[in-house]
């Protein structure tokens, strides 16, 4: 796949690279601290897919809503959730962005309109539809970013949500991160129609496709979809073709795919290919790369130190936040 | 688990008042053992139990009056393991603990016989009244007692007259040989070993019944049940009025001396109100002897569910033709009241003849 010139200036370009590096180093640290027993439960890493979150998320405004999945560390980070709060949440600490109630799969930040962290495949889609319905009924211009994997298109929730959003012309951008495997099931083994755009179009939802390994493609395609939506065009669908380099979760022995396939996709890794292009275009030096990487690693190291030092929520607080404190 | 229920100690008994328990939870009991004393309105009766076992729980308290058939106690059958706990509602258990009442002593009226709060409260209230005084008064005293007994006898006899188609037969029995035999028997014996004339006809009746089983037993649920033994109920008048007819068990098998002893014992205990439940419930036939009272004959009312009653009158000298000669001979009227649903006059007559013949050979009695 040939990549064209990067259409951004040096600063913007380096910012995109820096974001991808921050995600990458965050995920690597998560794996490391999972191994050390500091992070438990399910941990789904985003390594290999960084270009999607890094490219798409900045396209959304502060007032927009974001709904994500259980592989959402990168999305949360790109949405502005502090890395300290993300790492602390994975460590299960009281200073985590969900007070230790959510963990890796349930990162939330109401202030940043980041609505999780949804670990039911497809479960976030109806939610996104409702958020968009609220925006519409309130006559507000905000849109909803709804991230989900290609596995979700097999869920009824996908179809019901596409239909509702199209029927009611709701401003939802359905961001489908197609990493080819629903856990271990390849798309072709679970879908009769493997062209996801066709599925979306069948609901009269305009569909675009992006190279999810290319942060430029992601960003441009997302902008394109959003421009139409913000003009009142109803929902849109973007398929980001991407690949995760790591196993589905820390429990996954990866019996379902060939190492060679993984290696081939790694050749197209979003960080080194983008770095190479920037270097070729004179927008990045090796020193600058190392500096960006060092900064990312420092941020991660600080986040780990913060998370490790942070207290657990006292057990006496176990019952809080189930229902409102005040009796209705 | 065995329920020990209040037995019907006779047809005229519908309820009984527990006077005293002779056992307590944990006691092993043997078949035939007296476990309680119950006032039947006729008498204070020692009630026996007919199963071996271990007392698990006493359900009725002394002083309580309960209908016939009411479970009075629960027993573990031999080999049966005790259940962990008796059925007591939590509230009742709590209340009993507060009041200091032993749960074992409380009869349960709740679901599955559980002791309920109300049972505890009632027991507490009963304990607060001087119930002990009631229990210690011998049965059969006082105006109320006599009236109760009158009512009970009335109920039983009304039922008898209402339900049983009686027929009546009478026969004169020469008693010379019996008298002579008795005089000889008694002559050599100290007073306590002497026999009364009354025991001879009892034995004769018992022996005759062996040949006439249809006069010995019960009519129940539309059918006759032959008695499992010949238990002669002996009508005993109580000094203050009323009567009971406790059983002389297996009278046909016992020597006269034994019958005499038992009769004497029965009379004494009937009058001191300490009969046993089996004595009251078991009689398969009744003999009533009003000869002492000087009457010539008695046509009695059958005591249900029995099917026959033998009445004995006074022994008196009568002109009697024997072998063509008229002599003054001691003669006794023996009568039979019998249930026509079970027997008829022909068999009844043969029976009286048998009694008469038996009394002509007192040495064989």
């Amino acid at each position, binding site marked *: 796949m040939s990549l064209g010139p990067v259409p951004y200036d040096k600063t913007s370009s380096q910012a995109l690279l820096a974001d991808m590096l921050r995600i990458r180093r965050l995920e690597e640290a998560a794996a490391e601290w999972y191994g050390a027993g500091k992070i438990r439960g399910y941990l789904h890493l985003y390594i290999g897919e960084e270009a999607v979150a890094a490219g798409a998320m900045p396209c959304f405004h502060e007032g927009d*809503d974001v*709904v994500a999945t259980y592989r959402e560390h990168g999305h949360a980070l790109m949405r502005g959730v502090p890395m300290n709060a993300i790492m602390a949440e994975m460590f299960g600490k009281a200073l*985590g*962005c*969900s*007070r*230790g*109630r*959510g963990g890796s799969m*349930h990162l*939330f*930040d*109401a*202030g940043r309109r980041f*609505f*999780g*962290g*949804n670990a*039911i495949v497809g*479960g976030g*889609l*109806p*939610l*996104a*539809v*409702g*958020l*968009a*319905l*609220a*925006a519409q*009924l*309130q006559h507000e211009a905000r849109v909803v970013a709804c991230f989900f994997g290609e596995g979700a298109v097999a869920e*009824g*929730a996908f179809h*019901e*949500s596409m*239909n*509702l959003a199209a*029927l009611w012309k709701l401003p939802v951008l359905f961001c489908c991160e197609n990493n080819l495997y629903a856990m271990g099931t390849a798309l072709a083994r679970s879908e009769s129609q493997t062209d996801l755009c066709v599925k979306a179009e069948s609901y009269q939802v305009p569909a675009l496709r992006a190279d999810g390994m290319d942060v430029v493609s992601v960003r441009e395609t997302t902008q394109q979809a959003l421009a139409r939506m913000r003009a009142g065009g109803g929902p849109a669908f973007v398929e980001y073709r991407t690949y995760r380099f790591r196993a589905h979760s820390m429990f996954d022995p990866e019996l379902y795919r060939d190492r060679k396939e993984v290696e081939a996709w790694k050749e197209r890794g979003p960080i080194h290919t983008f770095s190479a292009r920037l270097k070729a275009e004179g927008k990045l030096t090796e020193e600058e790369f190392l500096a960006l990487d060092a900064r990312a690693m420092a941020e991660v190291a600080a986040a780990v130190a913060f998370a490790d030092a942070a207290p657990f929520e006292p057990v006496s607080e176990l019952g*809080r*936040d*189930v*229902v*409102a404190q005040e*009796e*209705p | 688990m065995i329920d020990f229920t209040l037995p019907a100690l006779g047809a005229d008994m519908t309820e009984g008042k527990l006077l005293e328990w002779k056992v307590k939870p944990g006691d092993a009991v043997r078949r035939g053992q007296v476990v309680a004393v119950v006032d039947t309105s006729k008498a204070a009766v020692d009630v026996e139990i007919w199963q071996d076992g271990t007392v698990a729980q006493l359900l009725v308290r002394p002083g309580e009056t309960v209908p016939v058939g009411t479970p009075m106690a629960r027993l573990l059958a031999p080999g049966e393991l005790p259940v962990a706990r008796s059925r007591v*509602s*939590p*509230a*009742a*258990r*709590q209340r009993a603990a507060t009041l200091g009442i032993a749960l074992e002593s409380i009869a349960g*009226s*709740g*679901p599955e016989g*559980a002791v*309920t*709060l*109300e049972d505890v409260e009632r027991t507490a209230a009963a304990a607060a009244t001087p119930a002990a005084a009631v229990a210690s008064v011998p049965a059969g005293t006082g105006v109320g007692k006599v009236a109760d007994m009158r009512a009970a006898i009335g109920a039983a006899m009304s039922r008898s007259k209402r339900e049983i188609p009686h027929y009546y037969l009478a026969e004169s029995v020469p008693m010379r040989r019996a008298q002579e035999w008795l005089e000889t028997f008694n002559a050599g014996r100290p007073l306590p070993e002497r026999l009364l004339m009354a025991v001879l006809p009892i034995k004769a009746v018992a022996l005759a019944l062996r040949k006439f089983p249809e006069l010995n037993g019960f009519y129940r649920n539309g059918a006759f049940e032959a008695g499992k033994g010949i238990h002669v109920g002996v009508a005993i008048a109580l000094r203050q009025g009323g009567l009971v007819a406790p059983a002389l068990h297996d009278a046909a098998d016992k020597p006269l001396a034994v019958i005499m002893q038992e009769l004497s014992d029965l009379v004494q205990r009937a009058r001191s109100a300490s009969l046993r439940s089996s004595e009251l419930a078991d009689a398969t036939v009744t003999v009533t002897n009003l000869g002492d009272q000087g009457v010539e004959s008695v046509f009695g009312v059958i005591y249900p569910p029995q099917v026959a009653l033998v009445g004995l009158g006074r022994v008196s000298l009568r002109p009697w033709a024997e072998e063509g000669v008229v002599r003054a001979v001691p003669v006794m009227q023996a009568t039979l009241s019998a249930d026509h649903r079970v027997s008829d006059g022909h068999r009844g007559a043969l029976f009286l003849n048998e009694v008469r013949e038996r009394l002509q050979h007192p040495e064989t009695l």
Partner: protein
Amino acid sequence: MKISYREALREALRDALASDPRVFLMGEDVGRYGGSYAVSKGLLEAFGPERVRDTPLSELGFVGAGVGAALGGMRPIVEVMTVNFSLLAMDQIVNGAAALRHMSGGQLHVPLVIRMATGAGRQLAAQHSHSFEGWYAHVPGLRVLAPATIADARGMLEPALACPDPVILFEHVRLYNLEGELGDDPSAWRCDIRSAAMRRAGDAVTIIAYGGGLLRALEAADQLAGEGIEAEVIDLRVLRPLDTPTLLGSVRKTHRAVVVDEGWKSGSLSAEIVARLMEGAFYDLDAPVGRVCSEEVPMPYALPLEEAALPQPGKIVAAVRTLLGKT
């Protein structure tokens, strides 16, 4: 003024839509059709299709949209035709609405009201007649209501909408045509959504019922009164959180309880209530707690079978007699 349960619900919806622009009603056939049980009849005309919104047959989708809209600042009222259909949306209710507050560490809350018809008695067989209230009452994060009277049908919606958490409001199908007097003054129906209510006082036994079971419990209580047994009847009203103190208070007085629940016994709300009585009033109980529930069969269609499957006043009377040792 005489008013039906259905009308009471409708008037409550009308008040809610009129008084708060954030409120909207959505569900299958709530608009043009007027509601499958005609509860929302006339509201489309009054408030327009934006706020009385017909949805496709997408329970998962539109209930989830309700959750999202609540997150987005609205006060949605979602109607699900029957509790049986709500199973299609249970993911959004249980994994979503109920969990979001806690899962987000208290950052989010879902002020959503879901109304659904429940219960049997209309010969609708095994896919339209069940009582799954207990399943929802199982879930922390939800508040579950069961209006059993005209006043509660009229009054419960307002506090439900004011509640910052998801509320499920069960309308028993046998009650829609129930008629009763209700004054014009809001004081006639204003109520809380946290307490049970004593509907009849008595001292011999406490009959605990809710929703469609309440009338049957009251009928049984009348019958028992004829036998000299005065039953206290408690209407749960709120199935979650249970008003345990009221239940315990009554049982401490009567020492006996029968729970009437149109759900099945196994793993049910009735089981939960019995357990709470054991936990809180064990030493006050004078008999085992009785239960009158639906027989453990999928609800059959034929009338005699349906009636046999359901709690009936006669069964309640019999259960009470058993507790009193009067079998």
